[in-house]
């Protein structure tokens, strides 16, 4: 596997019907309603973003949300840099599922994956079933960011992905060894010449 200089893989995880796919579709079509990005656009999205004065490429992978496909999770989030865990604020069980995903991600991928927890369907605030404090406290406790989104009203999506991209960038820069800055040319290093020896009268 080659190194990814400015490419990031983000997986969308969450229970079925919480709106993962809607988020992806809205994120695609919110700005690109006229043209098709790719034929796989409903499940896979390449998006170029400008973060920290550099252009990065987000590859957003949607996953099948059905419970029977839960076991396939590790195949999807292998080598992922970030995860957007989506729950439905009107459905407490979907929030429980998020906590399960977080545990699984931390256990299998480790601490290096950036996690954003998105409470979707914020337009249905009056039917809220997940207390706001609980969600925020939980996100803080697992070192994740919490955002509210509404795929229907196109709210919070840009912020969610930009914030995630920003954190992934910072994390990758922190992981990169400081002695190896990206440069255009190879650095030519020669070994220092040995100091000249005193005369040797043994050559011939």
């Amino acid at each position, binding site marked *: 596997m*080659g*190194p*990814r*200089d400015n*490419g990031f*893989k983000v997986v969308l995880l969450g229970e*079925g*019907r919480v*709106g*993962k*796919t*809607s*988020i*992806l*579709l*809205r994120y695609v*079509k919110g700005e690109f309603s006229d043209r098709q990005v*790719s*034929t*796989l*656009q*409903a*499940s*896979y999205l*390449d998006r170029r973003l400008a973060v920290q004065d550099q252009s990065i490429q987000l*590859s957003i*992978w*949607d*996953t*099948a*949300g*059905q419970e029977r*496909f839960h*076991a*396939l999770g590790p*195949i*999807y989030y292998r*080598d992922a840099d970030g995860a957007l865990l989506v729950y439905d604020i009107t459905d407490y069980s979907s929030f429980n599922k998020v906590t399960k995903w977080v545990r699984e991600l931390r256990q299998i991928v480790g601490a290096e994956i950036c996690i954003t927890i998105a409470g979707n*369907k914020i337009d249905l605030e009056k039917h809220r079933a997940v207390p706001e404090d609980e969600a925020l406290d939980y996100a803080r406790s697992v070192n994740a960011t919490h955002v509210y989104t509404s*795929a*229907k009203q196109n709210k919070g999506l840009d912020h969610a992905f930009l914030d995630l991209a920003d954190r992934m960038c910072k994390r990758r820069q922190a992981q990169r060894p400081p002695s190896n800055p990206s*440069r*255009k*040319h*190879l*650095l*030519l*290093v*020669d*070994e*220092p*010449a040995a100091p*000249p*020896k005193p*005369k*040797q*009268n*043994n*050559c*011939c």
Partner: protein
Amino acid sequence: MEEESTRALVNEGMMRSPRHGHAFAKQQMLGRFCAGCGKLAWASACRCLLCGTTVHRSCTMLRSVPKCTWAGDPLETPSERTVPWDEVDASRASLAAVRYISLQRVAATGAGRALRGVLPSNIAAVAAPRRRRDDALLAAEAAKIKRLPVKPTELTSLLELATAAKHARALEPHLVDEDEEVTTPRRPPSRSRRLGLWAGATAAGTVAGGVVGSAFAGPAGALLGAKLAQAAVASGATACNVGAFVGGAAVSYRQRHLLRSVSADVARLWTRRDDARRVAERALNAASGATAAGEPFDAAAAAALARADLDGAFLEFDPASDPLAPKLAELATLDDQVAIFVQTVLATRRTAPARVHAALSKLFYQRRHHVLPDVVAWIRCVSLEIVAYHARLAEAADALELAFDAVDRVILSHAYDIVFAKFDDPDRNRLLEAACDDPTSYVFKLRKNRTHFNKAVAALKTLDAAKTPSDKLRCLVSSVEALARSPLFDKDDDDDDRDQGRNNNNNNNNRDVTADVLLPLAVDCVRAARVPKLHAHLAFVEHLGRDDFLGVQGYALTTIHCALSVLTKNPHTPSAF
């Protein structure tokens, strides 16, 4: 013409001693003292073409020789110096310069960054060519060289001899004297001289061996060191300090350290000849076991490169004069051109990449148990050689990737069966066959028009015919894309997200295939295609593919992988998804 080539060699530093910067040439001179050992140089002396320093031929590599003081082109160490591509005149550069430029360009590409491990990390393999050719400077050099009483022909033959000797020694590092002074080949001395030499060497070797031995291991070491040194001298070793070192090293058990220091010296000696230095480093690394992975392959590649007549075999890809040009003109895309070029280069036995390829191929068939790493190393080495071989190929940003693909095709066309067999697993084959016998399920939700689904199945079936990872990946992508293009569902389909995000879609019949739908579709597609050994195909792509599987290729691979997992882990999945 010969003057020009000599001038170019001096200018590029290729004929100058890497240690002192002198451009030594054989001369018959009397009455001069050797700058290396201080003795009178009666005959067979060498004189620096630039500064006039005279040394014995056998003293050319001694450290005591002062550095060349020629002011016209002061010896510049390549330390911490980067050479921008545009400052190097590629049109007239030697192969060394071309190789350097090519590898620099490759290193700047995405694939090149991935290959940092292969590309020389500390310049080892690639020495910078000298600065840009300046006509005024060249003229001045030419005038100086003309005044020198050396015939360029003589000089060239000396150079050839020295280069050949270096190559030969570099390939067999264990034959390098453990003397830290590695010298140019010496002529056998006369008989009387040999006798004197033997006597002096024995005495000096005994004393030196004793001293060194005692320094490392006390009195017992001194005794043993002296004996060993005597034995070494008596058995034909030429210099007394060889005895000293052999004795000391044997007693002090510092073989490893010594080998490393010798390696460093040998490597340092050839800073100018990029290929020679590369050969030296690779071979010495192989000998000292410094890097474990792929070392036999690196050594074989180095050997093949050294045997190839690099300077003579350079093939400039000039559209005007190139014999391939008419053939290539018919091909529109770069990858086709690269493929043809690679095949031509590898088919022509005299080219350097072809020799590397042949050497690695031979090694591969001898070591079949290391199939995967060997094939990867093989493809990497040959691809790199091909890109370095052709300056203009390196200009294209994705040239290395394309070269990889083309080399893949060549190599896997005859090694495919061996490689693929390594991924085969009969148990999983049986499991998949059993799962495929279940009736397809999700596909019945599609409308009657199953054109795209059938296309996806057909694309998946071509996996077996594709022999390279990229070709197989292409099959997977086209299959998954065809699945994603079949959005014709019945209206009563229970859509998970009907309410959200889709209301702006005017054509309700033309709904998008989301991940929730794509995966079951892929399961059915895998089941319908009945590709034998599908898991082996996927593992083949994952292990040999150079993609980081981040983009759409990765998504397609993962989708089919998941579908296969669903099928084989749950062979009796309920028919309705």
